[in-house]
C-alpha cells in the first residue's frame, strides 16, 4: 500500500490485508539498507492474528519515494507522518537496528501515540566503525560483504525466513544490493550508517517513553552486541528483555523466537 507522507509516496506492506480501524496497528521499521521484507513472517502472523500491519520501506528506500532520512529524528517524523496519513491515533512501534532508534525517537517525540515499543537488535550509542562508514561510502559492495558476515551467526540456521531452502547470507546480501540500487540519487547505505553513528539522543529519548518497552536481543549478535544495549535497558521505565539465539538479523535467522517475543509482548501489554 502506498501512502503519501511528507509529500512523498511511502510504501507500507500490510500482510495482504485491508486496514481495519477496529484493530490495533503495529508499525514495523527496518534497519540500514533493508526493507519491509525482512519482517515477512512476523508481519504475516500479526496481520492474520488481529492486527493492522504497516511494514514500511523507509523514505528513499525500496518502493518508497522521497529523500532518505539523514538522521534518526528525521526518520521518526516520517513514522508519525505515516500514522497521520493512515488515520491511526495510537500504534505499536517495532524497529530493528537503525529502525529501533527511529521507533524510540518517534515514541519519545509522541509518547501518547505509542502503546508499546519493541527494539530488536538494538544498541546505544549505535557506533559504526570507521572502516564500515568509509566502505559504505566508497565501496558499498565490500561493505555489504562485511556487514553480512557480522550480521549472521551461523551457516546452518533452522528453518528461517523465507522458509526451508533459503540461504540467509545470500538472501541478506541480495536484498541490500537491491535496496542500494533502488535509489540511484543517494547513497542510502552511508546515509543510514551515518545517522546511526551520529544519533546522540537515546538517553533523553528513553526518559520520555511512558509505554512498555521490549528489547529483543540476539545472544550472538556481533553488529549490536547485547552488552551495548544495557545502558538503554537500565534507563527504560518499563523494560523487558528477551534474548534470542541468533545474530543481528534476528527476524530472518530466528523468525519464530522473534515472533514469539514480539507477539506475546504486544498481546499482554
Amino acid at each position, binding site marked *: 500500500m502506498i501512502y503519501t507522507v511528507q509529500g512523498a509516496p511511502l510504501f507500507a506492506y500490510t500482510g495482504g490485508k485491508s486496514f481495519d480501524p477496529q484493530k490495533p496497528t503495529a508499525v514495523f521499521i527496518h534497519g540500514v539498507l533493508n526493507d519491509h521484507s525482512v519482517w515477512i513472517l512476523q508481519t504475516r502472523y500479526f496481520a492474520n492474528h488481529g492486527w493492522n500491519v504497516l511494514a514500511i520501506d523507509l523514505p528513499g528506500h525500496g518502493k518508497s519515494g522521497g529523500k532518505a532520512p539523514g538522521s534518526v529524528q528525521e526518520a521518526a517524523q516520517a513514522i508519525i507522518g505515516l500514522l497521520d496519513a493512515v488515520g491511526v491515533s495510537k500504534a505499536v512501534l517495532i524497529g530493528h537496528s537503525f529502525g529501533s532508534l527511529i521507533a524510540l525517537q518517534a515514541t519519545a517525540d509522541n509518547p501518547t501515540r505509542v502503546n508499546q515499543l519493541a527494539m530488536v537488535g538494538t544498541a546505544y550509542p549505535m557506533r559504526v566503525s570507521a572502516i564500515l562508514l568509509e566502505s559504505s561510502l566508497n565501496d558499498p559492495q565490500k561493505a555489504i560483504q562485511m556487514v553480512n558476515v557480522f550480521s549472521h551467526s551461523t551457516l546452518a540456521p533452522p528453518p528461517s525466513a523465507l522458509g526451508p531452502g533459503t*540461504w540467509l547470507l545470500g538472501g541478506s546480501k541480495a536484498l541490500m544490493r537491491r535496496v542500494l540500487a533502488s535509489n540511484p540519487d543517494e547513497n542510502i547505505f552511508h546515509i543510514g550508517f551515518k545517522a546511526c553513528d551520529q544519533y546522540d539522543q537515546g538517553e533523553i529519548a528513553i526518559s520520555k517513553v511512558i509505554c512498555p518497552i521490549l528489547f529483543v536481543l540476539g545472544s550472538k549478535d556481533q553488529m549490536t552486541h547485547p552488552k551495548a544495549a544495557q545502558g538503554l535497558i537500565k534507563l527504560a521505565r518499563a523494560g523487558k528483555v528477551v534474548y534470542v539465539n541468533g545474530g543481528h538479523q534476528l527476524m530472518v535467522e530466528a523468525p519464530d523466537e522473534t515472533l514469539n517475543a514480539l507477539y506475546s509482548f504486544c498481546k499482554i501489554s
Partner: protein
Amino acid sequence: MPGYSDPGFDTLALHAGAAPDPSTGARAVPIHLTTSFVFESSDQAAALFNLERAGHVYSRISNPTNAVLEQRIAALEGGIGAIATASGQAALHLAITTLMGAGSHIVASSALYGGSHNLLHYTLSRFGIETTFVKPGDLQAWRAAVKPNTKLFFGETVGNPGMYVLDLPAVSQIAHAVGVPLLVDATLTSPWLMKPFDHGADLIVHSATKFLSGHGTVIGGLVVDGGSFDWSGPHTQGKFEELTKAYEGFHNMVFDEESTVGAFLLRARREGLRDFGACMSPHTAWLILQGIETLPLRMARHVSNTEKIVRFLATHPMVSRVGHPMLERHPSHELAQKLLPRGAGSVFSFDIQGTRQQGQAFIEALQVFSHLANVGDCRSLVIHPASTTHFRVDDETLKASGIGPGTVRLSIGLEDPEDLIDDLKRALKAAEKSGNKSGGVA
C-alpha cells in the same frame, strides 16, 4: 559465523546448511524419510500453511534433508536459496513454468542437452510456450529473437557436448536490456568451475545427477535463484504477473511484495512443487550432499585428468578434432580463459578419422571407459551422441550444436590418467585396424 570474512568454497561445501542434529547430536546430515511433520498446535499448523512461520509440513513441499542440500547449493552458487527437484529436467520445467504459461516465448541457445531441446522444442510448444533457438555465440541473433512475449533467455554455461562457452556477461546484458532474466544450466561446470551469478545470470538449474552427486547413483535436479532480477523492474513492462499480481491459488499472495528478492522461489515452491509435485526424495538429497562434500577435490581431479587426455588426443593421428576449449583452436578458447579460469570441464567430444564403423569399433574396444548415457560420474564414460542423446535432432541442428556423425563424447573420471590414456590408445588402435579391414580411411 566463525570468522571475519565469507567462508570459502571448500568450507561451504561441507558446512553450509548443516549443523549437528539438535535432538541426537548426529554430525552427518540425517535422512528424514518422513512424509509429514507433526504440528505443535492448530495455530502453528495454520501459521505454517499461511507462511507466518518457517517449517516443514509435507515432504513434497519441503523436507529437512532436502533443505540442507538446497541451502548448500545456494551457498556455493552465491544465490539466495534453491529448490531440489526429482531430476534436472524437472528443475528446468519448474523454472520455466514458474515464470510463464501459454502465450509466452523463450530465446534459447541451440547448443543444448538433447533432453532440454526436446522439452523446449516439442513438449512445451504443445502447451503454448514457444522457443526460438539461436547460436550461443551469435549475440545479434539473441537480440533479434526477442518478441514482446519473451520471458526468458536460456543457455548452458558450457554447451553439451560441443563445449561452446556461453558469453554470460554479453547475453545477460541483452536479456536485462529487454527486461528478461537469464536462466543457465550449469550442470557441466558446477559452481567450482564457474559461478554464473557473478557473470550476470539470474537463475541456475543443475542436473545434480552429474558432478554434484558425482558417483552416478541418483537422479536429481536443483533450481537456484540469485535474487538479482527485479520482476517489477523498469524494463519488465508487467510481463511477470505470476510474481507481481495477487495469486488466488495461495492466499492472494503478491510474491514480489512479500519478498523483494525471493519472489521466484516463493512461487516455485508454493505452486510448482505443490502442484506439479516433482520433488526430490530425501535419500537422494542425502546422496547428493555426500557428493558435494568432495566436489572441490573431485572437480580438480576431473580437470587435471581431462587436460592430460585432451593433450594426448590432440596429437593422435587417428583423431581429426578435439573439441575442448583449453585448445587454442576451439571457438570458445578465449572466452573460456576469461570465464572458466579453473578449466572448462571434463565433458568434451572428439572426432575419429574414418567411418561410423571405426567409431563403433573404438567404443567397443574401450575397457576402462563405460559406454553409457551419463556424464559427470567419478568413472570415465563414453557415448556416441548422434545415435543416443541427440538422436531426435536433425543433422542441421546437430551440426549447429557442434556434433558430427562420427563425434564421440567423453566424460573424464577420476581414474589414474595413465590408465585412461592406455585405454584410449588401445581403442584407437582397434579403430585403425577396423578401417584397414573394411578399407576405410585410417
